[in-house]
């Protein structure tokens, strides 16, 4: 049973790995078990996922006019 227990610090670490898809099945189950019993870590997990989705909004960036084409003579 002890192998299935995670501290909150370990759970946060595992959560970061899970967001990157690096957690195996055993680790994912262990993390899910911890999130079931720890409300603070569950809130952190929800917040991290919201951050990850919010990062996608940074993709909408307009390129400045000065960078439309590259001319090394003008840059030099």
């Amino acid at each position, binding site marked *: 049973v002890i192998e299935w227990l995670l501290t909150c610090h370990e759970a*946060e670490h595992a959560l*970061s*790995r899970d967001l990157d898809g690096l957690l195996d099945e055993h680790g994912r189950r262990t993390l899910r078990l911890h999130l079931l019993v720890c*409300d603070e870590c569950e809130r952190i997990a929800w917040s991290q996922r*919201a*951050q990850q989705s919010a990062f996608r*909004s940074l993709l909408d960036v307009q390129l400045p006019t000065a960078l439309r084409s590259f001319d090394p003579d003008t*840059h030099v």
Partner: protein
Amino acid sequence: VQIGNQERITAADAQRVAYAAKTVAWNKPQDHHENGIHPVVTPFLAARRRAKDRAFERLYRDHVHAVYRYALAVLHNEADAEDVTQTTFLNAYRAYERGERPHTPHNWLIKIAHNVCRQRFRDSSRRPREVELDDSLTPAAADDSDVPTANEIRRALGFLAFNQRAALVMRELEGRSYAEIAQVLDISVSAVETLMFRARRALREQLESGLTCREAEQTLTRLQRRDLSSADRGALRAHLRECKDCATLERRQRAYRGTLEHLGVIPLPASLATFIGGGASGGAAAGGIGLGVKIATVLAAGLVVTGVGREPLNAGATDKAVPAKRPAMRTESAAVRATESNGTQPGTKKRSSYDQRARSKRSRSSAPNGGSAGGAQQPAPTQPAAAPGGPSGGADQQPSGGPPPPALHLRVPLHQPPPIQLPEIRVQLPELPPPLQLPPPPPIDLPPIQVPPILPPPPPGP
């Protein structure tokens, strides 16, 4: 073969250039192009250069958006991001001219951009910080959704360490693997994993932070008493990243604490190591005798001199050996600590606005965790040892109405110190050598001293 523009050509190309060079003498020297390539003489090289430029232009169009996006996310400034993008492609173009052809142009360009960003970050940390007007700082319309916006993400990223924000942007924005990030940042893959974990935590703390300087100062005080939850510690860390003054205050307090802790680790002298037995060396020599043995020795010597018997010594030592006041003092200090941690003293129990906001955010959590404030328990009062024959000693500790308990006689056996047997020391002094027979000194012939006659003083003048 190497010519003016440092382009490597093959032997066949060299023959063609040599053939074309025969006509160069017939042309005017002012026809030379400024980049060193004569368009009439070397049309082959000029065509190759144009093809190379076209290839680089294609590379530029494919990746300029990603490079600019990366620079903007890392530097949080459009002008800086534009400069960094131009510098990145200029450096890439020079490397391209030297003949460098990357297998993965995207990684190559991002690595160049990262180095340029790092240089820009170092330069900007030395000069005064320019803060541009940000719409996100103005109070916007209340948005109930807890998902952060792009501006909030950018602003929070600006407070992170440079490597943290670079790793976060590369991972979340560009979807790079840990190995690619490790290659760009020149660190190991496991270090990238730790870096990502810390960067995500720091970003979350920045997004959730809302401490004022006054609240941060109060939180620092609670930090010294080790009375902070993990959420409070995160809010404090976030505020210290934003506020340089509070960060300086925290560093000073930490240094002060460290100095005080160093005062507590003064090494104990060897003679005070134990009370009864010998020191670590196990012997009684060289000052390794325990403190108790020394005291007993002094007392015994004094008693032998004054002729007092041994029984009163034992009785006195037995009475003194019972530490009756020690548990009471501990109980009192524990009670003080419990009061402080409960926050019942006026002025210490002040919940910050961040806590209230955090609590409202954590409304989903139904069961309280029972933080550190509720964990302290009042220790049970200990009953002090009653003095033998003194009925008034424990009177106020007894419950009212009940019969008084029998007098408690405590007799703590005192370990009798072992008899000291001093070794008999026999010192044999070596025999002194016979006195030296010095020859008498030769007589010294001094010349006679002639003293000049003393003249009478001159008569006084008129």
